[in-house]
């Protein structure tokens, strides 16, 4: 009973207007093959939930830059000027949370909690419109859990049950996002037979993963790569 499927089968799950949660931090750990597939399929009006909006041509940034995103729930958009531009012109709604609060809100969704209580942001404008509770005289904000219709993650290895391990700092939000999807798709750089991943070292147990697709590897240039060495950076046209 394998969960391994094709990119096309995965893309059937990702449709116009859906809520899409994604792993990755500055694009590192965002699944490149799925992003390209979503881009090529022309999916639009997405609500996306993830740490940041990547760089213009990296990670989720490509969909943001291309105007496929209606709303983003995130902690930071600074590395993608197109995100700021769309926010300013009003074509994309942006909701900011502190990074650690966002991580815990996603995890709370992933582990089936209703939310968390956090004191980060107390005494700032982040209090506005938020319910609060006092515990031992200390004020905490009520932060509801986040889930999404579809979650996409990037693993270095997966097995047919969906057990996942990640690659160094490519882990970041991926294990949290993997749990928080109502339907979770993992793109893996390598798919190994069942039993080959060490049970002690599996980071995401396969029960949280609904589908595994083989990844084609990163298809963008990193910000630190020299254009001279790898060709000029291409920003996809907005469409």
């Amino acid at each position, binding site marked *: 009973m394998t969960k391994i499927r094709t990119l096309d089968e995965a893309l059937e799950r990702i449709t116009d207007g859906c809520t899409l949660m994604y792993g990755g*931090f*500055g*694009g*590192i*750990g965002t699944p490149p093959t799925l992003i390209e597939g979503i881009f090529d399929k022309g999916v639009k009006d997405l609500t996306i939930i993830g*740490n*940041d909006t990547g*760089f213009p041509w990296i990670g989720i940034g490509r969909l943001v830059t291309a105007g496929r995103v209606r709303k983003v729930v*995130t*902690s*930071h*958009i*600074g*590395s993608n000027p197109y995100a*700021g*531009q769309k*926010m*300013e012109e009003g074509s994309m709604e*942006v909701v*900011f*949370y*502190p*990074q*650690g*609060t966002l*991580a*815990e809100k*996603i*995890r709370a969704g992933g582990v089936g909690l209703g939310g968390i209580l956090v*004191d*980060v*942001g107390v*005494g*700032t*404008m*982040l209090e506005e419109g938020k319910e609060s509770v006092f515990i031992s005289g200390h004020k905490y904000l009520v932060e509801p859990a986040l889930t999404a219709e579809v979650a996409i993650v990037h693993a*270095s290895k997966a097995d047919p049950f969906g057990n996942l391990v*990640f*690659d*160094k*700092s*490519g*882990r*970041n*939000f*991926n*294990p*949290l996002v993997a749990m928080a999807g109502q339907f979770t798709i993992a793109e893996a750089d390598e798919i190994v037979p069942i039993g080959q991943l060490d049970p002690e070292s599996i*980071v995401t147990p396969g029960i949280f993963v609904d589908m595994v697709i083989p990844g084609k590897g*990163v298809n963008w240039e*990193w*910000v*630190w*790569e020299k254009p001279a060495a790898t060709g000029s950076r291409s920003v996809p046209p907005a469409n």
Partner: protein
Amino acid sequence: MGETSRDRIAERAARELRDGMVVNLGIGIPTKVADFIPAGVHVTFHAENGILGAGATPLSGEEDGFLCNAGGYPVTVVDGASYFDSAIAFAMIRRGCIDMTVLGALEVSERGDLANWIVPGKRAAGIGGAMELAQKARKVVVLMNHVNRDGESKVRKHCQLPLTARECVDLIITDMAVMEVTGQGLILREVMSPYSVEDVVRNTEADLIITEPIAYIGGEHLDPEKSNSGVDAAPS
């Protein structure tokens, strides 16, 4: 701010590092602090994306796209390092495991309030990990220009901009001065060349407490007797 000034600020911040500290450096000038770690001081670098024990920048050609800091730039790791998810990275911050963080700022008040994430009406980059770091790190060091582009002091009696966190900053290092936030108020500790105490006071909206000794930092054109690199008089 010129490169020399940026370096000088980063170098001064690096002198706040103590052996054994766990440190998180923000993006921008704070990142440069890693280039000035004093000899004999070993610190552990924490990154919000999920690294404890980040090491030096790799040599060109040896970068790994999947081993980067929170800013997206390649790093290495030292022995004893670990990878974890971002929830755990922030657990470390909220639990007070970060001994010191170095952040940029738009404004700091004399009580240590920090504003560094949003200017109403302007494009916002977002919050990132700044709120957690400002509110929860044991020591918060802010690096910034002393005045903004309009020549207005960024060291304020009260912050005008929306806050990142209240009463969180311990030390302010600018291109003009080093100031310590204390229960008594904001104490001027050091003055950067070529500025004088009077220059600093004139460019500071906040009330500055001026007590001897004040150290003078950097600048070949300064009287060498006054330029002792500030080491002796550095705040502890």
